[in-house]
């Protein structure tokens, strides 16, 4: 607001902490051993997500979307294939701590810490606190509409506000990769719309590679550069659709014929 800014030409792909990462998912399959019958959740997933790209994954329930996200995060070891991250220094199998942010379906906060302490917590663990980090957090809280709630405890917030805190916490680390598993699934449509806009604005200012899982086709098209559709279990990629709508996008973009065409196409694939 204060500083006159030149309208950005295309998307910058570097944050203050270095470049967003390219994600290469190479022949990933996964089978859960489980009790009794093994469950084949993913089959030969190949996907390259470009640095700074916003990619959404949609698909029927139980097709392995969460599993794929957890494999990319390194929380689950895939039974086959591998995930490689390409950063400025070259390809790596594992990113350093704090380079991957994860947002769950509902907020996961430390209930005994205030909003501010929750958000700064990862930076404390990483040993990256300081005036600059605090300035970033202040800006993010402002953008997420949480100003004035810094000293509030999670129990004093609404569900939507708590989820915004979770998102701000993930963004405050300025991760190279942000993984979001139905982050707005539990919210009402109105809040969801607002948070979609906010997320795009935050992403615009803190570029990172985003993998976004959702059940809403409209949400996927609205947010993404690319939408990937998965088949029922075992999940395979059945469509990889580039969304070529201008940015920045406003809610009204949903009424445009181009938008409706993307949605109709994807709905046909899932129907």
């Amino acid at each position, binding site marked *: 607001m204060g500083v006159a800014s030149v309208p950005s030409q295309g998307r910058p792909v570097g944050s203050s902490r270095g470049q967003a990462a390219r994600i290469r998912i190479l022949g990933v399959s996964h089978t859960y051993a489980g009790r009794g019958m093994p469950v084949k959740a993913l089959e030969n997933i190949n996907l390259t997500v470009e640095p700074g790209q916003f990619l959404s994954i949609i698909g029927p329930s139980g097709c392995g979307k969460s599993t794929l996200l957890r494999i990319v995060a390194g*929380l689950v070891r895939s039974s086959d294939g591998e995930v490689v991250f390409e950063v400025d220094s070259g390809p790596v199998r594992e990113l350093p701590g704090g380079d991957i942010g*994860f947002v769950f379906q509902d907020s*996961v906060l*430390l209930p005994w810490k205030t909003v501010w302490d929750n958000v700064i917590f990862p930076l404390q*663990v*990483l040993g990256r606190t300081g005036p600059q980090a605090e300035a970033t957090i202040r800006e993010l809280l402002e953008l997420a509409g949480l100003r004035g709630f810094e000293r509030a405890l999670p*129990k004093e917030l609404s569900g939507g506000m708590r989820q915004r805190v979770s998102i701000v916490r993930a963004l405050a680390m300025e991760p190279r990769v942000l993984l979001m598993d139905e982050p707005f699934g539990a919210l009402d449509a109105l809040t969801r719309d607002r948070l979609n806009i906010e997320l795009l604005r935050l992403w615009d200012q803190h570029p990172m590679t985003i993998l976004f899982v959702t059940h809403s086709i409209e949400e996927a098209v609205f947010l993404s550069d690319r939408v990937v559709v998965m088949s029922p279990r075992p999940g395979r990629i059945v469509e990889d659709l580039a969304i070529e709508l201008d940015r920045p996008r406003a809610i009204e973009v949903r009424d445009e014929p181009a938008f409706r065409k993307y949605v109709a196409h994807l709905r046909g694939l899932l129907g």
Partner: protein
Amino acid sequence: MGNAKAAKVALHVGLFVAFVAVWHLYTVIARVPAYLLPSPLTVWQKFLWTIDRAQLARHVWVTLEEILVGVAIGTVLGLVFGYVLGKSPAAERILSPYILVAQTSPKISFAPLFILWFGLGMTSKVVLVTLVVFFPIMVNGIVGMRSVDPRLYELMHLLKASRWQIFRALELPTAMASFLAGLRIAATQSMVAAIIGELMGAREGLGYLLMLGHETFDITLVLVAVAVMSTLGLVLYLLVQQVERSVLRWRD
């Protein structure tokens, strides 16, 4: 608010005064002999006498020290075992039958053994208190460790947090609620353990005073000891409750 609180205090003071008055009137009207039930005034005088001539403060301090040292050791041991068993379900499965037996057995019954092994001094009571405190702290520690949200563990994993960081920032605060509930049980039981230990054989402490009153048919001394112990127990309980309130402010 202030008025309501003042009214509450006044009510309790009033009830206490009424209780003492009824007690006093009963001993006077029914002419109860003093060796069965002395009047409150007699007990009060005995109380002052005990402070002055029988080193009451010394006895209180001995019992309190047994409790505090025993609670400290029992808590540390209980937390260490609780952490290890909470972290390792396999170890807990193997040990759980023994834990169950140890938990359900009346640990107080070890008192004569401990007197035999550790003597009439404070050590035998400290060991008894430690034993009594250890189990609720350990069991509640395990429960606390298990109640950590697995997704928080995953977030810590993404931060490549160290074991110590995970303990400090996640496991300790999560387990705190259940730990303090254990401590509340432990505080009450530690008092009982110290007194029973002293009753079984001691030369100092409130339990010793109680025993002395019993053996010399001095019921007034018994009542003084009982009153002091009750007060001490209440103070310990309120202390833990206060800690609980201030530490767990974040809960609903």
